[in-house]
């Protein structure tokens, strides 16, 4: 070996000159056609997002409407009434799946999310019992949320500070908190909730005009955010995607949303009492979905959740406060899990000592079906919501067909494995790796 390099010394290399033509793109260039092509390219490379879940949803809807027609001789599935029913049935699972996304993105799990809601809601019923404490329901709800904060703080402490695997910590809480609920409620059967405002969340509807206003607000916000993004990009002097994409997105929201609001605005009652309008729970879920997505996509907290899920050590070395972020994510998860519990209690109008013990794994399944990776770092709230809709449609559809409850479990399990397989296969085919993507 000689100290004299074989090639000319790097200092004299011509690549030192400014790179003309060395253009680095941003994937935003080109017209509609380029963008569409780029999208399909991403899909081919295994970046399918919620696409399989959306496909599954469509297939299930067609399947159940055909089955309802052929097996029962009448359409029970594809009706205005069932559609509204489906949304309120799904609301709690959608919320729970969204809650879990915050910890799943970290590569963690919260098995106690369901029973957290159980403890919080039992506190709520005890505090609001008319012949007991008889507390104002808003205050009691606030306390229920604080119970969520406390449990999330506990989980977060042991996971991020002490360093115990979240599976173990939250499994411990899953068992322990069932005991807490049991003690708080006693095993005295079913506790009814008789607060009209609380029950309204899942059992009352917006006036027709409010449903349309809601759609208008969604369109306005979506348009405003797109324009804001474009303004910032223009100011920075980087290319914007073609504006046609903004119009296309707004058109899709307007058409799909308009269809949904229109269906929900027609009278779906089978008796003389008129039932119409968007269920109140829908805008609540949408607002939380919007805020959560905003935080995950556009703030440091959200970005760091993805970064930790992708490579925690890299995040730490970049100065990310990994412990704090993990901790807060567990708190967010618990709080949103309590909200999921509120939806479910409002729907049923009561809770019992077993409240929340059987929901968490469905929540995890929903997230996975929607395309959220259990390895962390990949997935969006919207994916979890769509996954939850898939699972809710299965339960709803099979229920209408009067099939035994066992079938529901088998089908749901099958769909979960199928979804995971589609995801894995698409990744392998794209030349990626099965793990850690």
């Amino acid at each position, binding site marked *: 070996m000689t100290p004299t390099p074989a090639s000319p010394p*790097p200092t004299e290399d011509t690549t030192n*000159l400014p790179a003309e033509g060395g253009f*680095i793109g941003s*994937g935003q260039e080109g017209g509609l056609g380029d963008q569409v092509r780029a999208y399909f390219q991403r899909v081919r490379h295994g970046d399918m997002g919620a696409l399989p879940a959306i496909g599954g949803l469509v297939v299930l809807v067609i399947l159940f409407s055909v089955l309802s027609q052929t097996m029962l001789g009448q359409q029970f599935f594809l009706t205005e009434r069932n559609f509204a029913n489906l949304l309120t049935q799904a609301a709690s699972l959608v919320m729970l799946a969204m809650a879990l996304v915050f910890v799943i993105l970290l590569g963690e799990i919260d098995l106690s999310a369901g029973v957290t809601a159980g403890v919080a809601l039992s506190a709520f019923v005890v505090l609001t019992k008319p012949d007991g404490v008889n507390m104002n329901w808003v205050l009691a709800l606030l306390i229920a949320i604080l119970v969520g904060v406390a449990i999330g703080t506990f989980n977060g402490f042991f996971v991020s500070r002490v360093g115990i695997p979240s599976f173990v910590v939250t499994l411990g809480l899953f068992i322990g908190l069932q005991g807490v609920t049991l003690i708080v409620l006693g095993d005295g059967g079913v506790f009814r909730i008789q607060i009209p405002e609380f029950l309204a969340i899942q059992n009352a509807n917006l006036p027709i005009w409010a449903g349309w206003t809601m759609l208008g607000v969604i369109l306005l916000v979506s348009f405003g955010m797109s324009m804001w993004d474009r303004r910032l990009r223009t100011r*920075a*002097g980087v290319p914007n995607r073609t504006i046609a994409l903004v119009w296309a997105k707004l058109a899709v929201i307007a058409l799909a949303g308009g269809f949904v609001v229109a269906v929900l605005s027609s009278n779906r009652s089978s008796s003389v009492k008129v039932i119409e309008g968007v269920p109140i729970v829908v805008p609540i879920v949408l607002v939380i979905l919007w805020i959560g997505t905003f935080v995950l996509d556009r*703030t440091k907290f959200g970005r760091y959740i993805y*970064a930790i899920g992708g*490579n925690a050590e890299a995040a730490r070395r970049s100065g990310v406060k990994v412990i704090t972020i993990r901790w807060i994510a567990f708190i967010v998860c618990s709080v949103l899990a309590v909200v999921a519990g509120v939806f479910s209690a409002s729907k049923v109008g009561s809770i019992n000592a077993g409240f929340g013990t059987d929901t968490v794994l469905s929540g995890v399944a929903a997230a996975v079906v929607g395309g959220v990776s259990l390895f962390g770092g990949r997935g969006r709230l919207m994916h979890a919501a769509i996954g939850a809709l898939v699972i809710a449609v299965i339960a709803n559809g099979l229920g209408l067909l009067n099939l035994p409850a066992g079938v529901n479990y088998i089908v749901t399990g099958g769909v979960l494995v199928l979804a995971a397989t589609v995801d894995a296969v698409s990744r392998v085919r794209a030349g990626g790796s099965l793990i850690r993507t």
Partner: protein
Amino acid sequence: MADTPLIELTDVVKSFGPVNVLKGVNLKAFAGKVTALVGDNGAGKSTLIKGLAGVQPYDGGTVRFEGEEVHLHSPRDASSLGIEVVYQDLALCDNLDIVQNMFLGREETVGGVFDEGQMEREASETLRSLSVRTVKSVRQKVSSLSGGQRQTVAIARSVLKKAKLVILDEPTAALGVAQTEQVLNLVRRLADQGVAVIIISHNLQDVFKVADYISVLYLGTMVASIPKDQTTSDDVVGYITGSKTYDGVNV
């Protein structure tokens, strides 16, 4: 030396339990110069730079930065001084894109919300200033990049942070001939921008190609610190393996 070194380590020690990994190490690095840190496996090179990064603080010794004594207890201490490390096991998040990785931990915001346009522009400009041509889009996920491209992103990250000292731990270890060449050019350009560079490498050919100074670590002791043109590859091999002792004056 006429210049004061940008960073100067004196008598740095570090042990893991009973194992003394660094036994009083001295090291200097100068602005605009590339200092190669060589030594056999387990000599303590990575441990030495983890101390500089604040990831694994030293047990003792002094660190002077621009002449002032400093204490490096956390990655934040190091990065606030302008010390950036590109690790052997590239610390990048595969699930994030190039821009997101380059800005990780120091995102540009407007009222607490990301200014993606600004970040994208700065990332592109930085890559362009380093004459990076192999990257197609700054919005590519890092998982889709080759080893050399990942190395490029990691180095560009430190440039973006306006680092005064960039430390590279075996940046060419896993790279092919062409990509090694590219990364070495990048290292040279980094130094030409006035940055002090410390590069760890086992490949002496690379070392002689890119370095201004060569520092040899042998079993936790700095046995030689020499300007490149005052030594030969054979001598350096001797210092690394301990079969030769350097009796000249250290830089």
